[in-house]
Each structure stands twice: as structure tokens, then as C-alpha cells.
């Protein structure tokens, strides 16, 4: 039973560039949530996708956008990268929005220089 998979695991970008991160949810899950985790902090909720629509959004600017595909996989896009966007980006999957447990991937560590 495949768990949540994310790619790439590490990447380095420069200020002003754009980045796309990818996530495949756990088998049987249809909902994907994205979190940003700064070093030493708890994960901060970015947004959630269900039925190919953004259902909820945290306090993040429009530079952060996403997409969900018919196979439930998802992408997180960040435009005009800032140094402060350097973080671990975690993808979490669940069923029918949220039924009590989130399953997380190992994350994509983004460094912005």
C-alpha cells in the first residue's frame, strides 16, 4: 500500500524564480492538503484540494497556488520566490476532506538563495 509520495525531495532556487512541487496521495485517499514548515516550527496550513477544487486556504499570498488532477495527485506552485519561502513543504492526504487522520509525505525541502 503506497503511502504519500512527494517530489522532488530537495531543490534550490533563486529569488524571483518559480517552483512546482508534486504529491501523490495515499491509495484510497481523495483529499490533499499542503503545509509549509519553517525550520524548528510546526507546519502551517497552505490550502486543501478536494474534487479538483481548492476547498480551504490558510493565510498565504496568491503567489502560492495549486492544482489537483483527476487521479487525486496535486501540485503546489510558488511564484516570485522570496528568501522567506525556504522551508519544508509537506503534503498530507485524507479521505473525504478530513475523517480524523492526516497521512504525510516526507516533504520537499526548498531552499531559496
Amino acid at each position: 500500500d503506497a503511502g504519500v509520495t512527494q517530489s522532488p525531495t530537495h531543490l534550490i532556487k533563486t529569488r524571483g524564480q518559480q517552483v512546482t512541487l508534486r504529491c501523490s496521495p495515499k491509495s484510497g485517499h481523495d483529499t490533499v492538503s499542503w503545509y509549509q514548515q519553517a525550520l524548528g516550527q510546526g507546519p502551517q496550513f497552505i490550502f486543501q484540494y478536494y474534487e479538483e477544487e481548492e476547498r480551504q486556504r490558510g493565510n498565504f499570498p496568491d503567489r502560492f497556488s495549486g492544482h489537483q488532477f483527476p487521479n487525486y495527485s496535486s501540485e503546489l506552485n510558488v511564484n516570485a520566490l522570496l528568501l522567506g519561502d525556504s522551508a519544508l513543504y509537506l503534503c498530507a492526504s485524507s479521505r473525504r476532506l478530513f475523517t480524523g487522520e492526516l497521512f504525510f509525505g516526507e516533504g520537499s525541502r526548498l531552499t531559496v538563495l
Partner: protein
Amino acid sequence: TQLLEQSPQFLSIQEGENLTVYCNSSSVFSSLQWYRQEPGEGPVLLVTVVTGGEVKKLKRLTFQFGDARKDSSLHITAAQPGDTGLYLCGRPGANNLFFGTGTRLTVIP
């Protein structure tokens, strides 16, 4: 935003010691979850507490939900190096989960 404050932020102890970490808020929650995140991994659910005053045990870990459902604690007995990680409390929102600030635990062999 209903903040979840965790304390202490960092904790370094010797193998075999006991410890308690806390998760506090000014708001009442319907339930609260604890996750552990090991280095290089995503968070993994340890427990969900729902009822005020509830106590749940998971081997050497004891979780308690405050009577007023505004706070929770995690007690570890005889800590082992494998307990090292970031401990996160999380409150369910509208179909999602919001996390606290985290306690980073290091258990020294």
C-alpha cells in the same frame, strides 16, 4: 486563528528520564491530536483525544486532555533515543488540521 502554544520549545534529556510536554490554548476544542515527526520524515499520528479529562496510553506515552478541553499534555516514561523527534499537537478545524508550535525532544543515550 486559534493558536496552540506548546512548551517547552526544546527539551534535551538523558535516556531513562521522564518528561512532560504541554499544549495550551485559550479556546475550547472538540478534540485534539498528537503527532510525532522524526528527522527527515513527515508527522505521524500518535493519538486523538476527544473527551475532557480523557487519558490515553500508548506504551510509555501517556496523553491527557484537560477537563475544559483547552489543553493537553504528553508524558513519556523512561525516554529512549527512539523517542527523539518533534512532537506536535493539532486541533481539527473545518475539515482540516491546524498545528501547534511543536516541542523538539532529544534523548541522549
